[in-house]
């Protein structure tokens, strides 16, 4: 996992672009889109429900949108088709500006799913399940402050649990 930005809570346009605009990222996005197309075609819906940790330029969403994988309206996106998570207010607002109608969670992904806690956020409770979850982490999975276990790994585990619970 790559480390982004000089300190948590900051937004640095150049650094972000270096991370999100690399050839590796584009390769992965292409594979994601291919997989999501298969997923959509096997669904009863005409679109997928995407949860993403996107960048302020929303590259992954742009690809999904171009390929008709997520549902759009005349004024933006269908809420149940697109959710993003972002904890830095400035980045959150920039992403939301690009994605009118999309569901946004101002907080970490870990907070969203309620990692290391009983239950999950009110939002996750009503928004799950998703067809595609793009956990494009830009912070280390094992942070210094996580003393015993990684909260991020907890969050991933919790995501699978939430998926099971919400899918019945």
């Amino acid at each position, binding site marked *: 996992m790559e480390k982004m930005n000089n300190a948590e809570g900051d937004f640095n346009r150049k650094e972000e672009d270096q991370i999100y605009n690399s050839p590796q990222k584009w390769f992965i996005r292409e594979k994601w889109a291919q997989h999501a197309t298969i997923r959509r075609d096997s669904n009863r819906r005409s679109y997928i429900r995407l949860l993403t940790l996107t960048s302020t330029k929303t590259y992954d969403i742009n690809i999904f949108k171009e390929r008709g994988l997520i549902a759009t309206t*005349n004024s933006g996106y269908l809420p149940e088709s697109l959710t993003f998570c972002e904890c830095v207010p400035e980045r959150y*607002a920039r992403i939301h500006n690009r994605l009118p109608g999309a569901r946004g969670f101002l907080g970490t992904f870990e907070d969203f799913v309620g990692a290391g806690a009983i239950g999950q956020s009110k939002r996750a409770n009503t928004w799950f399940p998703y067809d595609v979850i793009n956990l494009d982490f830009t912070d280390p999975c094992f942070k210094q402050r996580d003393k015993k276990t990684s909260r991020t790994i907890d969050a991933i585990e919790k995501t699978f649990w939430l998926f099971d619970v919400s899918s019945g």
Partner: protein
Amino acid sequence: MNKKDALELKLNKPQITQMKVGAQILEHLSKGIYSNPAYAIKELINNAYDAEAKNVIIRAKPEFDTFSITDDGEGMNYKEFSDRFVWISRSDRRDKGELTKNLKRPIIGKFGIGFIAVSEICNKMKIISTKENENYKFEAEIDFSKFRKSQPKEKEFYELSEVKFINKPEEKEEHYTMIILTDLSRGFRELLEDKERKERGIEVVNFDGKKFEDIVEEIEKNKLDISKDVGRYWQLILQIANIVPVEYLNNGPIRVPSKDGGSLKTINDIKNYVKSLNFSVDFDGVYLKKPILLPNEEEIKNLGEDFQIYSFKEKFNFDDKSRLYFRGYVYNQKQMIKPPQLQGIILRIKNVAIIMDPNFLEYPYAEKLFIPWNFGEIYIEEGLEEALNINRNSFRITHPHYRKIENYLHDLLHYKVFVDCRVRWDERKENKRKIEEEIRKENAKSYLNSEFRKSFKIEYNDTQAKYPIEIDLENNRLFINKNNPIYRKIKKKDRNFLEDILIRFETSYKKSEGNVEKLKSIFLEGLAKWKK
């Protein structure tokens, strides 16, 4: 209280003291001066407009956890922010003139209290802004909730909140201001979510995912009453669209030329001027335009293009050397305007709507019938601003500029618009009467034809005749003698009623040939079949 403020009057010895304003007034002001959150949000949009922004993006939907406003205006550094906004009411916007530097827009900000508005709708606010050619941006975090309790009365200023500043690096070419509101006040959030109506099971129209143009078309086509049929979130959007200096709809405000032609010129001049301000607001993906579209498409189809436009452009000088310039129009149609939100007059100062008054500034004459047939806009180009109250959505009605506009509008309506209205009203009544008469004639004919199996002609007679109704069976004619005294004794509205009964009676009389029982039976049968 200071010693020098103490009043200690001695007999026959005058003493002078000053009347002062206590800091507590600010506490009251900061608790709320706007009757509606649309006015609070308008202040933030107006700040962006004054900062020469061309695009404003607002995001709140779908969850209303946050409310953000981003603009591409000139931005601020921390010093400017501190001077303009941290010290409420110290606006320096107009220190260098009445127009903005580059785009030459008339500056809206006057009181410097726009930011008070924010404290009414949220507890926490974050502002991030940068100016072109400065390689840093500042971030300010404000928490209003800490200061919601009363402060001591002796204080010279009222602390509205605590502001935490920080500077961070930014690209030189960037210029923007971003305001992120979190921990939205409960009332504001519930209003956006339309919680009360949902809980009460009141159904409202949902415009989610639609373009602004389609929303306005739908309101107009379905004659929706915005305050009843439309949810609070969409009401807010429509209100804001009406207030802020965004352009008109492509086919609005008046979609077809009026009967006398040419009078759309002033409207088109205004429309082009507003467009030249080059200001757009994207509210949750919906690009706002002024939601004014008249006449209703159905009305054009059914009634023809029967409406008038009264344009005006006036200049007045006052004894105190102040001036009042304004231009605008009154649109009038021959029936009630729908939606009702488009009945009335809008007064705009610096292209911002201050009031939308359905009563045309307390129109004093007894012609209230015609009021809902009219809509108008007045753009104040100079003057009247001094009459603005601090909330910027009402006026001091005693101000001479306001009095002048009020009288001008009332005269225009009374001596011009409503004079034409009366003519049209009479025309309409006469047309209606003629149509009704034709229908009545046809009904009477068909009754007589079926009773006597002959083809009758109906004639109205103005001469004094012995009987009100006469049937001439030899010449197949029915005479209705309008001047017979029997008609004079009853009210006009009951005449048709009486006429119908008399036709049936006369028919029964003719058919019964003197047999009273037969007359009675035919007459009652005729009445039973009679459809009014």
